[in-house]
């Protein structure tokens, strides 16, 4: 599809995703990793690479990497090795980054993505290796000098490398979104792209459709939003086709995406690339993951999005669309399940309230499900009042709005606003009689066969009862009365 846009050219894309792991401390030191702390307040002697200090591996980082590996059906290395990757830069205190090279912890996995045409495509995951993040160089506000913040130095990452299975920017985005949802679901990563917790390098090349070999690729670094990834890849595909069609050749190089212009530009070519001089880090022992260890982690894996979606469709009778919406995050799914359980109300009704009303309120208030102004228990309380006919569905909307505005729980609001549904038939009959007396023409018309006027009477009765009359009772009693 997307390839047709490029007149006989095909893009070949592989993505490298750097994903910060949600551990309490750094991968090789005890320093904390809270985002946004004052510069250099979360950097200890190990992070500063003072002489004589040594790295000690954070076991939780290993556990999270294995958790990820299992969730993409990958192999977990029985024995993996940390290696030093050397280059000089001021925000890399040791002069090398501790990473994994020949023996990564996770290899040979895959992720299935859904394409726009509804089909599924499998994207191979070559490997995911553990490594430490670098610090940050700050080039502004230092009167010509560069500031170094080492708070981020040593933050645990997994770098997830895909196979070059992706063929369009849209597929790349679908893969990234799926991966993002997965790592957040697993509690492996907070997924905050603005803070750089989840960032992407895109390897892009183009070739004539059907060509046996890949073209020369470029790598666009550190693109940190889904939209930018899409734009950067689109730009890069078009640029490469244009270069080749006008007789040029693609240079293997690293490029940077500029969000303001939507363009990528060359940063450094392969010739200027560092020789990283990888070798096994002698300060760290090989990591051995036993089958028991792997099995224990497998046993504690949360239900993954796809399985949850299938279960929601099956157990709750939800439409695929609703199931997808409600499982888009683990928290939302948990919220929904709590509402169903606590309210005892119809699961589809609960789904409507959560996916329509609640999400609209959250969207309007710019809040996350975790910050919802209405707790799952509170929403369940409201739905119970519908189920037990204390209020009608229509009145419930009004109560819901008040709850969202922070006016209290459903029962308090129903009581305070006098919204309890009128189920007392004599009261409803009085209202019907009143309406019929005031509307003789309509009564005559209805009785002469104008059935459509029935709605008018319902409206008038509900109005007279401020919407509190039980709609079922109104319908039934009206029919009797009008029949004469």
């Amino acid at each position, binding site marked *: 599809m997307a390839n047709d846009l490029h007149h006989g050219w095909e893009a070949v894309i592989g993505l490298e995703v750097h994903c910060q792991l949600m551990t309490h401390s750094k991968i090789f030191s005890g320093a904390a990793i809270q985002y946004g702390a004052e510069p250099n307040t979360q950097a200890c002697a190990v992070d*500063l690479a003072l*002489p*004589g200090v040594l790295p000690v591996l954070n076991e939780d980082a290993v556990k999270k990497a294995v958790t990820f590996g299992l969730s993409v059906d990958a192999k977990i290395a029985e024995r993996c090795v940390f290696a030093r990757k*050397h280059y000089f830069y001021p925000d890399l205190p040791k*002069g090398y980054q501790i990473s994994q090279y020949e023996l990564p912890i996770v290899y040979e996995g895959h992720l299935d993505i859904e394409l726009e045409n509804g089909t599924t495509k499998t994207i191979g995951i070559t490997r995911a290796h553990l490594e430490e993040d670098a610090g940050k160089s700050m080039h502004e506000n230092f009167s010509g000098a560069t500031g170094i913040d080492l708070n981020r130095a040593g933050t645990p990452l997994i770098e997830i490398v895909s196979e070059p299975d992706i063929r369009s920017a849209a597929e790349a985005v679908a893969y990234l979104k799926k991966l993002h949802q997965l790592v957040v679901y697993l509690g492996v990563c907070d997924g905050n792209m603005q803070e750089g917790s989840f960032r992407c390098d895109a390897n892009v090349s183009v070739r004539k459709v059907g060509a046996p070999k890949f073209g020369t690729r470029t790598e666009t670094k550190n693109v940190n939003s889904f939209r930018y990834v899409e734009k950067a890849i689109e730009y890069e595909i078009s640029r490469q086709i244009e270069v080749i069609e006008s007789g040029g050749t693609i240079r293997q190089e690293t490029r940077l995406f500029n969000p303001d212009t939507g363009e990528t530009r060359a940063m450094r070519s392969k010739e200027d690339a560092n020789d990283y*001089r990888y070798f096994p880090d002698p*300060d760290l022992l090989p990591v051995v993951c036993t089958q028991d260890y792997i099995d224990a982690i497998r046993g504690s894996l949360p239900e993954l999005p796809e399985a949850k979606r299938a279960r929601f469709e099956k157990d709750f009778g939800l439409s695929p669309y609703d199931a997808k919406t409600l499982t888009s995050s683990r928290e939302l799914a948990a919220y929904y399940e709590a509402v169903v359980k606590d309210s005892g109300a119809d699961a589809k009704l609960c789904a409507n309230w959560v996916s329509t009303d609640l999400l609209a309120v959250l969207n309007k208030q710019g809040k996350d499900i975790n910050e919802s102004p209405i707790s799952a228990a509170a929403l369940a309380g409201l739905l119970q009042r519908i189920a037990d006919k204390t209020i009608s569905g229509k009145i419930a909307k009004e109560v819901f709005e008040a709850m969202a505005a922070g006016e209290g729980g459903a029962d308090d609001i129903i009581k305070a606003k006098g919204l309890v549904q009128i189920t007392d038939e004599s009261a409803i009959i009085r209202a019907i009689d009143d309406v019929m007396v005031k509307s003789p023409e309509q009564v005559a018309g209805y009785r002469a066969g104008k059935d459509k006027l029935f709605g008018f009477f319902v409206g008038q009765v509900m109005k007279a009862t401020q919407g509190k009359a039980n709609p079922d009772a109104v319908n039934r009693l009206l029919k009797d009365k009008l029949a004469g």
Partner: protein
Amino acid sequence: MHTLSISELAEGLRARRFSSRELTQHYLDRIAAHDRALNSYVTITAEQALLQADAADAALAADNAGPLTGIPLAQKDIFCTQGVRTTCGSKMLATFVAPYNATLVDKLQAAAPQGAGMVMLGKANMDEFAMGSSNETSFYGPVKNPWDLERVPGGSSGGSVAAVAAGLAPVATATDTGGSIRQPASLTNLTGIKPTYGRVSRYGMIAFASSLDQAGVVARSAADAAYVLQAMSGFDPRDSTSVDRPVDDYVGALNSPIKGLKIGLPKEYFAEGLDAGSRGLIEAAIKQFESLGASVQEISLPSSPLSVPTYYVVAPAEASSNLARFDGVRYGHRAEGAKTLEELYKRSRGEGFGAEVQRRIMIGTYVLSHGYYDAYYLKAQKVRRLIYEDFKRAFEKVDLVLGPTATGAAFKLGSKTDNPVEMYLNDIYTIAANLAGIPAMSLPCGFVDGLPVGMQLMGNFFDEARMLNVAHQYQQATDFHKQFPQGFK
């Protein structure tokens, strides 16, 4: 006082024959009187030493003391000491003051019972970043051998051995990457032990070659070494390569009989290159061991001729990586007036590192480069495995391996500085133990033309107790180790 053994010092302190302050002051006075000639200390911490001594005296009075409480020592200037500068023999770290102690420093100097309560006299001179076999690469000047001031004390722990040999410290810490404890001990009539790799924490010890570096001790006898090694050994959660296993009772094992001990003599260690005088002394020592009830057999360590080339790939490779952090950005020497980042790096490192360190960084960078890694580094690691297997086979037959420590006695200052390869060959007998990770020690076995000569004992993994026991039994039967250099008595 400076001729007393560690156990005699400990007993003297307990019996109040002298206080730790008096003992410390005695050593500080000797340092003031003699170190101008030797240059064994880079930094003397007199004030702090006396404070530590007072604390030790209080602990002794309150009966809160361990066996080493109040006994002074010199710390090799490779160990980070909180509040006291740690230079590692380099201009690069001329002003570096660590905000933490090396684990070894805490273990030896913290008050009992957390530590041994020893008193630090100062930081001992050393070859720059422990790269050297003569102590001539130190930015703080060469150290002289107390047995002949025109000769080198060996290296890299040259300051440590010179201080102990001349009675400017009762004992000193040292480190050994390819022989830096044993070769200088041999050249200064001391007993020096490099324990099994992983026995002593490397945390806070400035790294030269991480997979080879091991801390140990130089002392005037095996018994003295046993006391201090006992205190500095043990698992450290801050060093992933330290080994979590209990420390044997080194002191308690000293007096075990050695009858029935099987000693292996590697024929490769007695081939060409060993000086005739040294050979004679070692042969005499072998007879001594036989008279103590040991049996001797020839063994072969066929891969040992490959030790030096293997070492000079592995050690520089790791060094080039370990020393990358000295970039002038966060601490250490920073060149002035650099206009670009690259210039800052090049000039800071060019000015901060001496010639030998630069040479090894270049070798290491080369052997790790793309396209050369397999031919050098990977190949060296394979040979390293063969060397380890040589020892594994040997220890199926014998308890200890005995041979020379160095090719001869101390050489003259400046005599080998123009030829790095000749200098590297100094470590021909010591390097294999580092490559294999096994414990090894040197102890005095006599004199050639008034210069001391040592012999080397190599043991199986974690067999330090047996090695110290054997060395102690030898020293009970001989008095070479009791000789003291003229001019420092």
